[in-house]
């Protein structure tokens, strides 16, 4: 998804927090589909972002269980990753999703908000690499670091040995995305 912030004419040495807040507000309010989904960008800081998708009945994908559709989670992850990429840039410019892989670890629970934490873990001049996790835990502190969970082998669901780390067990989905970074306006050759 292409995004365009139109802020490149401002001085480079702007306050990072102010830039992050602008990204947060823009993604919450100025992106029609995010607003239509009721998505809230809760926090944007350099390289990281967190968003919330409150449960809504019109987002249900399986009418038998009331579980929300994967497509709504795709939108949540794409938007949160986009914020993480933009907040990692020295100059705010346009970025576009190249690809997004989502592994569904377990179904979202009906009636609960889905949160997404995204982290841009590698930035090159033209491409950004992002990972993200979707989960129900409003208090989780490990933004995007789903690889850092403690591996454990406690008994679970009748399985003899559960090869699941404790963070992943509580996650709905983990995701990896790549984004293209366009040259800021005025700096293009």
């Amino acid at each position, binding site marked *: *998804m*292409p*995004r*365009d912030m*139109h802020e490149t004419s401002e001085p480079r040495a702007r306050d990072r927090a102010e830039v992050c807040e602008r990204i947060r507000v823009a993604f919450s309010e*100025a*992106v*029609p*589909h*995010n607003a*239509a989904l009721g998505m809230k960008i809760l926090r944007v800081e350099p390289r990281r972002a967190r968003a919330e998708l409150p449960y809504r*009945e*019109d*987002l*249900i*994908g*399986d*009418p*038998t*269980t009331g579980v*929300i*559709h*994967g*497509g*709504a989670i*795709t*939108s*949540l*992850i*794409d*938007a949160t990753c986009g914020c993480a990429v933009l907040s990692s840039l020295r100059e705010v410019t346009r970025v*576009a*999703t*190249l*690809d*997004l*892989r*989502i*592994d*569904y670890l*377990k*179904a979202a629970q009906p009636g609960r908000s889905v949160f997404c934490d995204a982290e841009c873990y590698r930035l090159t001049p033209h491409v950004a690499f992002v990972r993200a996790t979707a989960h129900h835990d409003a208090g989780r502190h490990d933004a995007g670091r789903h690889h850092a969970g403690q591996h454990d082998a406690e008994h679970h*669901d009748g399985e003899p040995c559960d090869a699941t780390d404790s963070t992943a067990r509580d996650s709905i989905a983990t995701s990896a995305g790549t984004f293209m970074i366009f040259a800021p306006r005025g700096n293009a050759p």
Partner: protein
Amino acid sequence: MNNLERIAAARAAGDPGQLVEAVPYARFLGVTFEQRGSEFLGRLKYSAHLVGNATIGALHGGTIGALLESTAVFKLLWETDIVALPKVINITVEYLRSGKAVDTWARAEFTRHGRRVANVRVVAWQDDEQQPIAAAQSHFLLVAGTGTSALSR
């Protein structure tokens, strides 16, 4: 009517559109399905609430991902003998061009259709099928009966 009865009724009527009426999110997005000859096509009707970038009027990447995923799911429901909604194990969406403010179409192909797992490739386009705007590769867990699966969902 439960899912199983709905699928049976839609197949009997030859109208895949009936499947969509049962899924609130499909109605929210504006996704529909149609049979054109032997082809099963998904369609995302353009609407202002699908826009991700208001400046250039481009579709939100999530809406394109949703069309791709839904087309795979409904083709599985429509053309195979499964009796419950397939569960997405994973999906990789490749964004090839930005989606313009027009309708988007999608076609799915089963790369591998086993008893428990299906691998599906889906392509989406707008004006020109030779200029796809996105593609997805996805695994689905196929569930016999309802409610239980190997992933304990």
